[in-house]
């Protein structure tokens, strides 16, 4: 407050001096005591009003960007000033009272705006044109880490997740939980061993027991470690690591989505970055960019290759996966649900790691389940709870701790609400709900 008054005086001192000068002049000039008293009184009122105005201005100056919630106080000060002037200077009374009233209305509306919860739209993500081809192995590896984990140095953070959404199922560090899919620690070395396993049937795709023999007709099988990695991304069901197949498929079908197809849709450049990181992080020399992309070209026909946009998509700000402004299919894709769940009506959502999300039908039964210990009383509450706190109730036959527990911070409130809206309306045997 003292600072504010000092600031007000530093701004308004010429006016105060002028008023003091006027006071002295009138004291000297007027002889009638009544007139003198009246003039003194009016100048004092003027001083008070000027003081209020300059404090209001100082408040604006000091708090315009910082404590902007305090700015309506300035308007209140000017309101008070205007009404005081209106009372004691009747010749401008109407103007001052009207002006004061307008300031009052503006103060009330500004105050209301400042009282409501304050939401600030963050900066858009930087627009970066990536030229993977001309990057060094380290740069490429860094980009790969960003795609997998969302940022450089994030690979050691449990729960960190990027565009590729790999950590939803895979562990990447020795000892990290990886029950849904193989832990990818040491994968470059292990890949060569996989080729030698009897179920892999190197160079004999037709003999494979899997539901899909080849990535596409005539693509054949991998013949080296890099090709193995590329094939497992482009055709996860071509070979399923024992114990990680879809339940009941006897490891002939993988629950993993094709990584170049929706919902993930990584380009060849991005895939090269991901693969490079897996080599580089273990201190190994990675194959060249050209070798990696050639390995993918073997398993992804040209028509299926996602366009090299070259620019990072403008995603929501603040490090969230989705902000709810996306169309429904894209929202589910960004949130990562299709990787594990089948969501009827959502393109590409055929995941088989978690239950099928007919939540309109499932939720009432689960709430009634004696094993249910949550707080939900309605379908919406149940769905919200199972997204934000998945371990509160774990569906029978599905293991606990499979679903990430940080969707509360990875999805905006709007995104969660939109997902909950859709899932709550999904009922088995009934038409699909609208996607709006």
């Amino acid at each position: 407050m003292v600072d504010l008054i000092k600031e007000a005086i530093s701004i308004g001192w010429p006016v105060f001096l002028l008023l003091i000068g006027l006071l002295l002049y009138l004291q000297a000039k007027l002889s009638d005591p009544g007139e003198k008293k009246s003039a003194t009184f009016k100048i004092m009122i003027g001083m008070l009003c000027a003081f209020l105005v300059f404090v209001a201005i100082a408040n604006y100056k000091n708090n315009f960007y910082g404590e902007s919630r305090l700015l309506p106080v300035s308007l209140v000060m000017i309101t008070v000033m205007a009404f005081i002037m209106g009372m004691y200077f009747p010749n401008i009374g109407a103007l001052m009272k009207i002006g004061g009233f307008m300031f009052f209305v503006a103060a009330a509306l500004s105050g209301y705006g400042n009282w409501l919860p304050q939401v600030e739209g963050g900066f858009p993500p930087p627009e970066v044109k990536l030229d993977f081809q001309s990057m060094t192995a380290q740069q490429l590896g860094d980009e790969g880490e960003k795609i997998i984990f969302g940022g450089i140095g994030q690979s050691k953070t449990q729960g960190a997740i990027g565009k590729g959404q790999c950590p939803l199922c895979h562990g990447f560090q020795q000892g990290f939980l990886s029950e849904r899919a193989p832990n990818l620690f040491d994968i470059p070395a292990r890949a060569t061993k996989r080729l030698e396993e009897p179920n892999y049937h190197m160079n004999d795709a037709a003999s494979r027991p899997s539901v899909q023999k080849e990535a596409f007709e005539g693509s054949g099988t991998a013949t080296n470690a890099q090709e193995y990695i590329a094939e497992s991304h482009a055709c996860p069901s071509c070979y399923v690591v024992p114990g990680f197949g879809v339940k009941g498929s006897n490891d002939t079908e993988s629950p993993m989505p094709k990584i170049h197809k929706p919902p993930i849709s990584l380009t060849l450049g991005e895939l090269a970055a991901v693969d490079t990181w897996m080599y580089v992080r273990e201190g190994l020399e990675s194959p060249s960019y050209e070798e990696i992309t050639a390995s993918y070209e073997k398993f992804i026909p040209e028509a299926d290759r996602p366009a090299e946009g070259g620019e990072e998509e403008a995603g929501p700000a603040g490090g969230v996966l989705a902000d709810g402004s996306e169309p429904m299919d894209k929202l589910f894709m960004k949130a990562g649900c299709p990787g594990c769940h089948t969501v009827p009506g959502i393109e590409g959502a055929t995941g088989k790691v978690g239950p099928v999300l007919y939540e309109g039908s499932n939720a009432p039964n689960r709430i009634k389940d004696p094993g249910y210990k949550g707080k939900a009383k309605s379908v919406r509450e149940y769905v919200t709870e199972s997204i934000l706190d998945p371990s509160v109730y774990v569906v029978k036959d599905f293991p606990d701790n499979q679903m990430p527990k940080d969707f509360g911070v990875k999805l905006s409130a709007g995104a969660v609400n939109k997902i909950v809206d859709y899932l709550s309306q999904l009922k088995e045997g009934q038409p699909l709900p609208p996607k709006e």
Partner: protein
Amino acid sequence: MGRLSTQMTRKNKRLLAASLLVTMGVMLLMPIIMAIPALAGGGGAPAGGPPPDVVAAQKEAAEGEGEEEKIEMGRDVYYKTEGPAVGMPAPKTEDNETFYPRYNFESRVLLWFANQQHLYYGSFVLAVPIFCMCIEFAGMVSKDKAMAKKYDQLAYDFIKISLTAYSLTAILGGILIFTFLTLYPAFFGYLSSIFRPVMHIYALMFVAESGTLYIYYYGWDKMREGILKWIHVSMSVILNVIGTVLMFLANSWIAFMMSPAGVDEQGRYLGNIWHVLHTALWNPLNVHRILGNMAFGGGVVAAYAAYRFLSSKTDEERAHYDWMGYIAMSLGVAFLIPLPFAGYWLMREVYAYRQQMGITLMGGLLAWLFIIQATMIGILFLTTNYYLWQALGRMTGGERFQKYIKYLVFILVVGLLIFITPHTIVMTPAELKAMGGQQHPVLGNYGVMSAKNGGINAIIMTTILSFIWYQRGNRVPTVSWAKFGNIFMGCFFLIAQLNNVWLACYGYFIPANVRIGLSVPQVAGTLSCLILMTPLNLAMLKGGRQLGPIQWGKIPPRSQYALIMLATAFTWMMGLMGYIRSSVRLFWHVNEIMRDNSPWAYTHTIGFAANVISFNVLFFWISIMFVFWLGTLGAKKAPVTGPVTQPVPGTPAPQPVTGH
């Protein structure tokens, strides 16, 4: 013979005057005529573009790649048609002084200020001539000569106010262009290059608008009688046509920024200027702005009248400005009522254009601003009702209704509280987790859509009832079917209100997607009250018994604060909605075409926006009060004669206080 000659001379003079005016009118309309071939031909290739250094850099890059200069074909981002990419691509800006020169202050706020001030004044000077046209026409066709003179004087008073504001509008337009050029040269250069085929038309229209306005104003006294009066009124039509076209052209810039068309995905102009103008949101914006301008113009004139009323020294002055305030307020509110429907259309088109844009507005980042808007709509209606109740006080017989007002207050307050209660709240993930869902544990039970619709419909119906009471203030229906009419009207209001409340409650028991459909019967009830009951009331009052005259000027001074409240709230809401419309582009100068890479490419908090809006509103009012004051300097006092009472509500009697 001499008499015949005098008659001939007079006739010739009139003919000459008419010919001159027609010639002048044609010349003034020349820009529109010139515009037609340009629009039909799709306009020429824009020669403008981004700043020279950017153009040079881009050209150099193209040459460096060894590309030959050839015209490529591009695909329209909206119309999906093919066209020659004759324009430069939208510049890719960077956060530096070349693209974003700056002072030691946020450039965006400076531009916001300049834009908003120009818009306020522009709206005012475009709205007032429409009022003038209506009022002058009403005066001209009026059979009552005294009445005709009063209307004529009122129209003149209106145009006089706008004339002073007109030059300020032009100055602010200049300031706006300089602000653009200084702070956002790349962006402004790009927009100018796109709109180049119609830029000269815009400038010429402005000249035409000024010329017509000056002839209209200064020719008022000379063109008082006969055919000249018709020509004068016709000129007001020309004036408004030019003004409206001018506004449409200005709107096309903002519509292009929100929903670009006529360019390919790189932002290259494809040679069809009509596509650039006629974007997805152009027409909804045009309609919304015309109505908004009218409501705003009514508010400003009402505030002017209130100011003059409160500073009046005589009863005659008070009577005149009381009447003027009433007419302006009625006009403003008349255009306020259809405004939400235009708003719905605009929002529907926004959703149709880009769903995520609609969600950002109504259910995302900007959703809280709509809560403020709801509150303001409620305040506007409350204030209108308050004014009408105060106005009953100047009518003998108006006291009959006073005892019922407390019930209306109750309905209005309850309706407002329901209307502003949010159901689904926008919040952060942490808040969501803490609350366990998007609905507040207590409030979440109340704010469903049908209940909120019920709230606002109850408010509007109550306002209609207040207006009907106002019309009946000093009159009693004497038609033979008066009793039946009263019972019918009472039952109609009761049933409409019960239907509204029942549907509001029923909404709690049905799913959300079905509940949305309830708004149709709710609104239908309200509109029926407006469309059927107001004319029925007038029919009942025809030839009715008068209990006493309207004593213009006898309204309590506090009623004038209601007018000022209306005007300030209109202005604030205009600033708020303009901010919402503009900020929905988020980090795009031109949506999905030209990215905003300035340091201000983020969305401010609601509080910050509210502070800037308040600043803009107050600056506008302080400056326009200065304009009003300037207007009074030129006015010479005229002797006031005639009665200060008026027997029929809504039809004026007081004499003008200024001459011309």
